[in-house]
């Protein structure tokens, strides 16, 4: 077993574990912390794929911005004691987990029986992950989309302000 594979396994197992904690924890704060851990693990996985830019962005955007917002809202709502937070089992949950299980079998059997064509990483991959490569692509091939994302963020800002305002002016 090579060192990279070992690293992949550690990161993979930890990311799965933190994901499970995220969805199963009773306390939203614990969930949020587990999710932050998960984001770090993913960032590591991106590095094993030689995607440096994405790995850095992952930390900056997700862990740095989105999760701070989430934790902030959790604190703001102040949901009270833990007993209230407990969730009971019902039919929907059982059915949901059953469905997820079926879906998992489907996905795994697809990935096991159909190995991808690309068997090895091409030499160019190391360059593709750099800021330079992505930046060039972004401002030449995807210029229009880059402009469009500005509208998206503008919409999100205006919308969030509107919804979170307290009173009607």
């Amino acid at each position, binding site marked *: 077993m090579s060192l990279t594979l070992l690293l992949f396994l550690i990161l993979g197992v930890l990311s799965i574990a933190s994901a499970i904690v995220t969805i199963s924890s009773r306390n939203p704060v614990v969930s949020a912390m587990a999710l932050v851990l998960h984001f770090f693990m993913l960032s590591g996985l991106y590095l094993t794929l030689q995607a440096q830019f994405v790995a850095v962005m992952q930390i900056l955007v997700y862990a740095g911005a989105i999760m701070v917002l989430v934790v902030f809202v959790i604190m703001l709502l102040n949901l009270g004691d833990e007993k209230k937070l407990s969730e009971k089992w019902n039919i929907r949950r059982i059915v949901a987990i059953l469905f997820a299980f079926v879906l998992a079998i489907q996905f795994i059997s697809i990935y096991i029986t159909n190995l991808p064509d690309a068997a090895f990483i091409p030499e160019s991959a190391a360059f593709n992950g750099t800021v330079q490569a992505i930046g060039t692509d972004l401002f030449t091939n995807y210029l229009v989309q880059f402009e469009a994302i500005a*509208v998206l963020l503008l919409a999100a800002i205006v*919308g969030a302000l*509107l919804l979170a305002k307290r009173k009607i002016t």
Partner: protein
Amino acid sequence: MPLELQLSLPLILILILSIKIVMVDAKFGNNKTLGFVTALAGFIVVFISAAFTLTISPEAIASLNAEELYSKGTITYGGFAAYFDMLFCVAAILTILAALPYFQKENSEHNAFYSMMVFAVAGMMLIAHSANLLSLFIGIEIMSISFYVLAGYFRTKEKSIEAALKYFLLGAFATGFLLYGIALIYGATGSLSLPEILTKIAADDFSNTYLTLGIALMLIGLCFKVAAFPFHQWAPDVYTGAPTVVTAFMSTAGKAAALIAFIIVARALFVIDIGQAAEIPDFQTNAIMIIAIISAATMLIGNITALVQKNIKRMLAYSSVAHAGYLLMGIVANSPQGWEGIIFYATAYLFMQIGAFIVLSVLERKTDKNLDLDDYSGISKSHPFLAAIMAIFMFSLAGIPPFAGFFGKFLLFTAAIDAGFTWLTIIAVISSMISVYFYIGLIVYMYFRKSNTYPLEADMGSAKVTLIISTACVVILGIFPSLIINLINNFF
């Protein structure tokens, strides 16, 4: 002006408008009409520029070399994209004209509404123009995010915010599947560009299983956006809970945008000309069969459930689900004829559905009042104009000639039969027979019932313009459908 600049004028203008409207909102937030005027003028300008790009000859557009353009071939110009730009602008104009009196009545603030409308239209236009999965995704997201906000626009009202929450959670969930599908299609073909994907599929150069799974997942995401069974359940709740003018816009322009996305994707993934490919791939026959079943189930469920609704807004919401089923028949037909059918019906549907919802919004009081069938008893006496045009919209929705809705159905049904889906057409005809029951039911209430003791008030204001334009279009498109058909004939 360089040709590309001329062609991308509508997109540039809507971009400028979206910044402008935010600035107006920020600086003159207290002025109630300035945002309205800015948005109205802006949409009219965008409409005109789109109409202008439609006049540029398709040959000139085809002669452009993608590599030399700023858009690098990620954007489609002219043709159906320009047509849909115009359609979205018309929908937005009709909606904001009706929104002004509506919000005055509800004592709500205005300006942020116009901003969100502009953003939504920008997103829809990007969808219509996209020739690339990335543009498509961003367009869908801009539209969806604007809709989440618009659905919860009455943020202090329980139903409105419930609609926003449901729409957001389910919409984001569906986005996950859409995105996963895009990722797998990208992995299977190595490209995000739709024309390239088509070439690769036609040349049999792709990884079959991943592409199949990717198409399945993407299908799910798109079916959610058009509100097709079994991904339709958000629609009745959201359409009922959202402010009525927003529902009018979401259920028409939003549906049209989702359908053009569907057409764009179908054109890239499904081979029509068998000469191009060795044989039709399995995933194509399977996917089309699945869409056919979804289409049949959607129209049956939508129409049958609408039968027992007592709230007109909710009834129309279910009927909107049913109409998604009819529209999907054009995708099932997988032919230019079918896509033209979709475009025609989406146009016709836009006018009749906006018209119907605006009639509701005019008679509505305090968001929830006066929306039940009983409230409409005998309003033909007190509001003959509203009752008459509502009857026209209902007849058109039911597909009774000579209104526009009939021709839309006619084109879609013949396209489906030509593609060999006679069974689907039979189901479609049966379900539209069922739908007649509740559309006519409303007319019975309006015309053949005694009036209520409490008279409904209606102050239409600028909504009158919306209603007159919608009625005129529903009638004119029914008598002279060629006006539109000749225009859309050479899109595909």
